[in-house]
């Protein structure tokens, strides 16, 4: 877009991430249902960090809502609460809440549903990935919530060694995360965690949660990440990682070997790969939470990186997006888009040929 120079001049890291897409990409016509999901009064939707569907079309939303709290007058300051996981049917009718008052729910980041309809949440503040079975029972836990909070809080920037600091951006050889962002699986059931903001790596576990390997560190070279904001895996087991600061999607094999990158879709944040014989890749060029004057569009691509089209832009109206954090594309032309800025889930229908 035309704000390239302005964006590069700003000192704000987030603003610098905003992209600047090519003008030649065709616009995909689409419609939006911004009020499909009917939240009960007792569960107010906040930032819609994660949205995903299961095989029956039920919709799961992991939202930042309520009151994140720190206890005083204790041996150490303990943090509690702040996010909830809610299920709706395909008509948007409320079904139930899952994981109420969970120890692992504080700062919702993502929700995904695996092929067996297990529901997986990713939480940035507890740094936990939780697998719930379809009945809502906890099946597997990855990572661990820090026992106590640091007071005063550490800065969020990785360089300052704070909550975003991690162990030199690489996450070391540990199965603990530092602000993870996303989770995905290959066809063998191996689990890949994008870890993410505090660390800059991808951690791989087998289907039983046994830690196998980790790859990536902070940087700009191939195989390095600014951050890993999202992750998706295709039917062949290739791993697509959104690396917004480096304005690219990196593609790896399942062992973490770098294969290629896709670099003309802005600052990729939320990723989704559709199922079926012909898979498509969706990637959002999410606008910074404090700026709706640039970016915001979502791209539709072939797995080889060919851009098929884009739709939407940053803004607050229906059919506009406020910092997209999640895309569900199980329906291919029928998407659910979760927004941080607009506290909203839009159901999108693309009119593609």
């Amino acid at each position, binding site marked *: 877009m035309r704000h390239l120079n302005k964006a590069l001049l700003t000192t704000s890291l987030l603003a610098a991430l905003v992209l600047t897409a090519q003008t030649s990409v065709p616009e995909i016509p689409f419609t939006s249902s911004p009020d499909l999901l009917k939240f009960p009064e007792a569960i107010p939707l906040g930032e819609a960090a994660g949205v995903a569907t299961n095989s029956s079309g039920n919709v799961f939303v992991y939202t930042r809502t309520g009151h994140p709290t720190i206890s005083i007058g204790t041996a150490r300051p303990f943090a509690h609460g702040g996010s909830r996981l809610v299920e709706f049917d395909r008509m948007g009718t409320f079904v139930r809440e899952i994981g*109420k008052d*969970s*120890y692992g729910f504080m700062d919702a980041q993502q929700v995904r549903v695996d092929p067996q309809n297990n529901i997986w949440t990713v939480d940035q503040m507890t740094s936990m990935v939780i697998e719930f079975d379809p009945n809502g029972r906890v099946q*597997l*836990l990855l990572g661990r919530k820090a026992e106590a909070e*640091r007071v005063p809080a550490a800065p969020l920037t990785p360089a300052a060694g704070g909550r975003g600091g991690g162990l030199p951006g690489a996450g070391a050889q540990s199965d603990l995360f*530092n602000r993870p962002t996303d989770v995905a699986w290959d066809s063998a059931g191996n689990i890949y965690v994008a870890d993410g903001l505090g660390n800059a790596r991808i951690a791989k576990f087998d289907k039983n*949660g046994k830690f196998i390997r980790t790859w990536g560190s902070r940087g700009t070279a191939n195989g390095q990440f600014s951050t890993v904001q999202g992750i998706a895996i295709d039917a062949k087991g290739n791993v697509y990682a959104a690396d917004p600061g480096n304005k690219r999607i990196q593609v790896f094999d399942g062992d973490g070997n770098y294969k290629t990158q896709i670099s003309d879709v802005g600052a990729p944040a939320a990723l989704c790969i559709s199922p079926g014989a012909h898979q498509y890749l969706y990637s959002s060029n999410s606008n910074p939470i404090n700026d709706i004057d640039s970016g915001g569009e979502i791209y539709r691509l072939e797995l080889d990186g060919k851009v098929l089209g884009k739709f939407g832009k940053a803004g607050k109206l229906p059919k506009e997006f406020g910092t997209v954090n999640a895309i569900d594309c199980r329906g291919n032309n029928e998407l659910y888009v979760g927004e941080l800025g607009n506290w909203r889930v839009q159901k999108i229908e693309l009119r593609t040929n």
Partner: protein
Amino acid sequence: MCKFYPALTLALASILATPAAFAQKAKAQNVPEIPYDSVPNFLKMPPNLYLGESMGVATNSKGHIFVYTRSATTRLFEFDQLGNYVREIGSGNYGFEFAHSVRVDPQDNIWVVDEGSNTVIKFNPAGRVTMVLGHRPEVVAGAVATTNATVPPAEKYTFSRPTDVAWDPQGNIFISDGYGNNRVVKYDKNGRFLKQIGSEKPGNGKDQFNLPHAIAVDAKGNVYVADRSNHRMQVLDNDLAPKAVYDNIGDSWTVCVSPGPHQYLFTSNSNPNGNAPGTWDTTGEIYKMELDGTIIGKFGHAGKRLGGFQVAHMLDCRNPNEILVAEIESWRVQKLILRPLISAPGAVK
């Protein structure tokens, strides 16, 4: 978290991954494997109620099960002997901040140890508070800053992140204290201070501890202390004088002594928090021992699926053939049915 220096732990616990290098492979070799089955989904939670980190588990004389757990807030739940949910105890209690242990005394009183509020709370069987040991830091002081300050000298009636409680046959109370202090304190049955061993300072001498993490007392009044970061269990007599050290069982995370005429001792070499690939292979097993330290056998292994343990934190061994295991990182309590030994000593691993 694995503990090295208390102040450093306080400062960094929330931001650093703990190096797995602190995990200790047990020196004991050729220990027979005790076969066992894990009862699936033993505890039945009502809708919208979940266990978080399962820190404490204990049974009373009727077989009812008490679980002290870290969910969004710390809570205490009771289940019947079949695992059916009975009730919540102490909802909103002033001392429920960061669960660490629950134990049931011979009179079926329920005791919780909370390392967040620095209190040990005794509930009678009806669920009413009947005694409080320790004191929650003044709320008016505000949030406690994370600093490198050293732990102040241990006081008679103030704990620093206490970990566990036990009683001798006379009703005297023994408390392991804990992450901040490094001591064992003995009180009489009315909560009056009698004696302590250790101090606020960690150490590896005979009368010192480095993270006394759990405690149990046998029928003769001997005291068993899981001295976790010293990679050993210490045995004390009833006056807290050191008697023996068992140091071939890895990191002793928890300890349980079964009742009855022939008492057994159980301890867990739990796999710690923060693992590199491969570390599941060296820790995670639970040992069954004679009181004199002779190892009878071991069971279990690190793992997240049923039958494996992901940081076992507490055991209930009221029935030495049916063990309840509370795990930190799998948010569950497993009921294990132990079967007879299949291999003679010296046969396998």
